[in-house]
């Protein structure tokens, strides 16, 4: 479940495009298991992307973001070879951080 994020970051014309694929069940809490009992909600509540320690995107999420969330965004001020880090936190307090080198 807490598998690594796949992050791709490319810079062109001063703009870095970041594409992230996170591994997370994003369980809404509205489904029932085969025995009829409810499957508890389990989803990413916060996402933060940073570059050189500075936040370049912050997200507050609910369970209606799809399973294995995809996120893409763009920002200025980075150059090839630098890194972008992405961290998520879920409603159980679990957290995961990964980074990628900007190509």
């Amino acid at each position, binding site marked *: 479940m807490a598998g690594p994020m796949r992050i791709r970051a490319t810079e062109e014309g001063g703009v870095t495009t970041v594409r992230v694929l996170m591994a997370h069940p994003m369980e809404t809490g509205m489904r029932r298991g085969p025995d009829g009992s409810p499957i508890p909600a389990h989803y990413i509540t916060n996402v933060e992307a940073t570059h050189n320690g500075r936040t*370049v995107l912050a997200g*507050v999420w609910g*369970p209606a*973001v*799809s399973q294995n969330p995809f996120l*893409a*965004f763009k*920002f200025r001020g980075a150059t090839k070879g630098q890194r972008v880090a992405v961290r998520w936190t879920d409603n159980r307090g679990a957290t995961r951080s990964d980074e990628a080198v900007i190509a």
Partner: protein
Amino acid sequence: MKTNRRTVLQASGAMATLVALGIVTAQQAHAAARPGFDARTLPDALRALGGAPATSNQISIVSDAIAENGAAVPVTVISRLPRTTQMFLLVERNPIPMVAGFTIPEGTEAEIQTRLRMGESSNIVAIVRADGRLFSAVKEIRVTLGGCGG
């Protein structure tokens, strides 16, 4: 931007103190940090964000008109409004319309792409805070297979 008790309390970190004193429940404090995520209707979600947004043609919602799979509907939201600081995505007919909110720091483009769950065909509503004011755009997406797995 409307300054309200909740915003001031949050900013000053007093919310934690109020929870400790039993004046505010932990649930209320949590909700303050996640505006709109408790709301079960679109008007309630908009109220939680600070009021009725003005429609803007400077906000684009890019998606297919028909989604094959309601569990994963790709959506891109773009704001051309200057000084966009926040972007929110809502699905009007979801049990909880608020899906995601993003803070856009200076230097970051006001353009976000993600995939949403839609329980049924519905309007997607994008709300943008720019210059402290709220603006909105709407796009209908029809769903052939609803995405709540129920």
